[in-house]
């Protein structure tokens, strides 16, 4: 709607941590379809929904049964349902608008990831990827599960008719297997431990095609882009591979059935599946870090599918790399010295959200550059000096052009003040379904001890003010741990008295951006204890942050290893 005045070339990548969110210890995140709400699963079993416009806490779902750390959260297509998987082997489905628990199912294995079927507005089927067995399709209403095939025998025999027999047929113990629905939930892409992508029909649970991944190592993640055009795999050989999906996004099931029934003159069934695979996915590029060869964590596509984002899986590193579709590295983002455990790219904006092991959620966004010409409508910003060429009639008493301009507006022209267009970005919305894009805010009553004049100052000042203090220091204060000696009492006051109105445990802070990060980078080599007084607060901030991170490192590392081992090799 505001399209005519918004600059479309405002850039594609986030550049800096704009803000962070804090509520308990968040473990995993997911955006709703339009990116207006961000769901997060916490280590205490609760799920929270942040209003991403105001960056305020909109809802919290908790229950006496749900106390185990959440491993993943998933939205239904139009935001009516939220599915959470937890380490107590449970799947919990929440009604977003009422906050009621609709269903809770306990599986045999801990689901590492669970996603709702994208086809339906109120799905009851979800795809769960457990810790050490094949992916399951779970009916949340009945609790019935269907095990998906994770391999196809190469000896020419068709796959075992009953996939449940897989446990008995001598295949090696299952590793966690990655799987994802396609755009409309017709097909499931399964990445197995042998380095194959299996395309499975979500209705008949039949393997239609196999794609061999070069390298043939365990597939850790398999992710579809938002428009369904691209698929990426993250393999244990430290390479992210991007595939172009050449099946039609709609009616992909019919198409693949056609492919499968077409020709049959292959030496074996396996050859036929491979041939089918060749007409489903085409490898378009391979992404890896040529120098340090790091393992990747939680790779994903940007909202428009043009960029691929991967995070370093190294401990104590919060590093993101962005590639374009041609496989060229275009941006490296480096955050605080905390391992990253989950991330998401905003569906429409150049904004990335990452979760660190400390349970903080960082929001990476474009740095806001003031567009000065917006303040003076007659002025145009120039990249460099230009010679001004005076108009012929510029100093005439009656400039002709101005008169012509006056005539342009026909005051009798019809104006329409009522009709408006829908956002073209989300053209796939069915009109019949009312999408939940915002949750009505319930203003929480004033805290009695609220301080007057509690205002964070002007936006421009906020950018380089580090009034908010370091998140880690706040964490330390909140956990009741001793405050690192490096922090001055004044700063502690700041962080505890931060915003009494926001509730005891939820925080949303604007962070120092450029300056702070630069300082932090420069501080990296130094020992945590060193403190450069002349650099003022920013230095204190980073030193303190490192120190408190170090102080808590044992706890964080434990968490990190737990997560890492699950996803890398077992």
């Amino acid at each position, binding site marked *: 709607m505001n399209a005519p005045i918004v600059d479309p070339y405002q850039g594609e990548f986030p550049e800096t941590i704009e803000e962070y969110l804090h509520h308990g210890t968040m473990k995993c995140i997911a955006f709703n379809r339009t990116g207006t709400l961000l769901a997060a699963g916490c280590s205490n079993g609760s799920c929270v929904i942040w209003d991403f416009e105001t960056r305020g806490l909109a809802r919290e779902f908790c229950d006496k049964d749900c106390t185990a750390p959440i491993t993943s959260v998933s939205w239904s297509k139009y935001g009516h349902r939220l599915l959470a998987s937890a380490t107590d082997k449970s799947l919990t489905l929440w009604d977003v608008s009422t906050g009621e628990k609709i269903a809770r199912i306990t599986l045999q294995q801990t689901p590492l990831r669970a996603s709702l079927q994208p086809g339906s507005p109120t799905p009851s089927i979800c795809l769960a990827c457990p810790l050490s067995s094949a992916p399951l399709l779970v009916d949340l209403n009945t609790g019935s599960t269907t095990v998906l095939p994770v391999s196809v025998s190469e000896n020419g025999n068709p796959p075992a008719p009953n996939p449940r027999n897989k446990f008995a047929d001598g295949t090696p113990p299952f590793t966690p297997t990655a799987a994802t629905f396609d755009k409309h939930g017709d097909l499931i892409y399964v990445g197995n431990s042998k380095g194959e992508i299996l395309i499975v029909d979500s209705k008949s649970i039949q393997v239609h095609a196999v794609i061999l991944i070069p390298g043939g190592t365990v597939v850790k993640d398999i992710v579809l882009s938002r428009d369904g055009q691209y698929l990426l795999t993250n393999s244990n050989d430290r390479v992210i591979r991007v595939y172009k999906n050449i099946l039609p996004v709609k009616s992909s099931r019919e198409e693949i059935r056609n492919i499968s029934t077409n020709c049959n003159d292959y030496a074996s069934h396996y050859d036929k599946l491979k041939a089918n695979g060749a007409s489903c996915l085409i490898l378009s590029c391979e992404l890896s870090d040529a120098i340090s060869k790091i393992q990747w964590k939680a790779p994903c596509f940007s909202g428009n599918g043009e960029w691929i984002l991967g995070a370093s899986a190294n401990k104590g590193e919060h590093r993101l790399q962005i590639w374009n579709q041609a496989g060229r590295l275009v941006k490296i983002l480096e955050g605080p010295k905390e391992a990253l455990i989950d991330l998401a790219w905003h569906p429409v904006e150049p904004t990335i959200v990452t979760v660190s092991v400390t349970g903080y959620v960082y929001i990476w966004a474009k740095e806001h550059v003031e567009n000065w010409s917006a303040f003076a409508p007659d002025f145009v910003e120039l990249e460099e000096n230009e010679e001004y060429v005076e108009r012929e009639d510029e100093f005439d008493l009656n400039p002709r052009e101005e008169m012509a301009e006056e005539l342009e507006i026909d005051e009798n022209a019809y104006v329409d003040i009522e009709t408006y267009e829908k956002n073209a970005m989300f053209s796939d919305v069915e009109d019949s379904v009312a999408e939940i894009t915002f949750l009505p805010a319930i203003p929480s009553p004033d805290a009695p001890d609220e301080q007057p004049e509690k205002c964070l100052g002007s936006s421009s000042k906020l950018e380089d003010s580090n009034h908010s203090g370091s998140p880690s220091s706040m964490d330390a204060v909140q956990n009741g741990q001793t405050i690192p000696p490096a922090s001055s009492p004044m700063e502690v006051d700041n962080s505890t008295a931060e*915003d009494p109105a926001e509730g005891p445990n939820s925080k949303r802070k604007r962070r120092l951006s450029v300056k702070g990060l630069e300082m932090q980078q420069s501080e990296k080599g130094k020992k945590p204890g060193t403190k450069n007084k002349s650099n003022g607060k920013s230095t204190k901030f980073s030193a303190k942050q490192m120190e408190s991170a170090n102080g808590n490192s044992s706890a964080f590392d434990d968490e990190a290893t737990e997560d890492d081992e699950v996803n890398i090799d077992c």
Partner: protein
Amino acid sequence: MSQQPAPPPPYRPYRQVRTATPHSRAVSCVRFSPCGRVLATASLDGTIALLSPSSLAVIAVLRGHTDGVSDLSWSTDSFYLCSASDDRTIRIWDIRSVLAGGAQADPGADRCVRVLRGHTNFVFTANFNPQTSSQIASGGFDCTVRIWDAKSGRCARTIDAHSEPVTSVHFIRDGSIIVSGSHDGSCKIWDAKTGACLKTVIDDKKPAVSFAMFSPNGKFILVAALDDSLKLCNFATGKFLKVYGGHVNRVYCIQSAFSVTNGKYIVSGSEDNCVYIWDLQGRNILQKLEGHTDTVISVSCHPTENKIASGGLDNDKTLRLWVQDS
């Protein structure tokens, strides 16, 4: 008019059906709730009255502001009302019990759920984000536009928007941008998320911009200036598409309204004590509603019925309800 697809129905005049004096001083703002079931009025006496939109009977009075109230805004679900006051605060009021209980609701209950503090001078205008209702924009005599998180009461952003008092702020229908008008004669568009200035629509030193709001579809802005002008402006190009005149507006920040329930009209108060109704397309005055005995400072159109409410300043103090004959 020649380009209009269908000829407009013949104009049916409005007539006064009710009058009430709910306040002891000037009425400063009248606002129908989006659900159409409550009419809220604010006054210089510091109170806000909630009235029945048909009988003008007072359902409840909201007390709490220690100084005059200048502006009101409803959340889209009609559950909350926010008020901007000269006591430098914005208050959020919970109206749910009034909507649920109707006349039985306790008229004197304290319905204030939150006080937003931060403005360093009179708050002149406040507006709920129509999408989330968790966001409020405000402007005042400290020349800033502030964006508040309604849930926590935190001031999320302060924009040094103008060099003179801000007279109006208004969100576009999808909540993405905000228009602000100021006594410094400018009218600017802001990104609601980042607080960035996206466009300066009007950049004159004079006359002061006394009122600015988006059209219902968010494609245009209606801008009033203290030179007796009311203009419909394409904010993308900065061009004035329609100019409505004939009324008097030199001193006060008079709140206008779009009327879309029957014909498409522009409705505005005037300093000659009348309510003016213009044809949106033809720009001609369709009717002058006479009755008030002082400047008509605020008008509001009912969301579904052909009803206009108007409020007058200190020499009048009345609230009047006008209905189109059927």
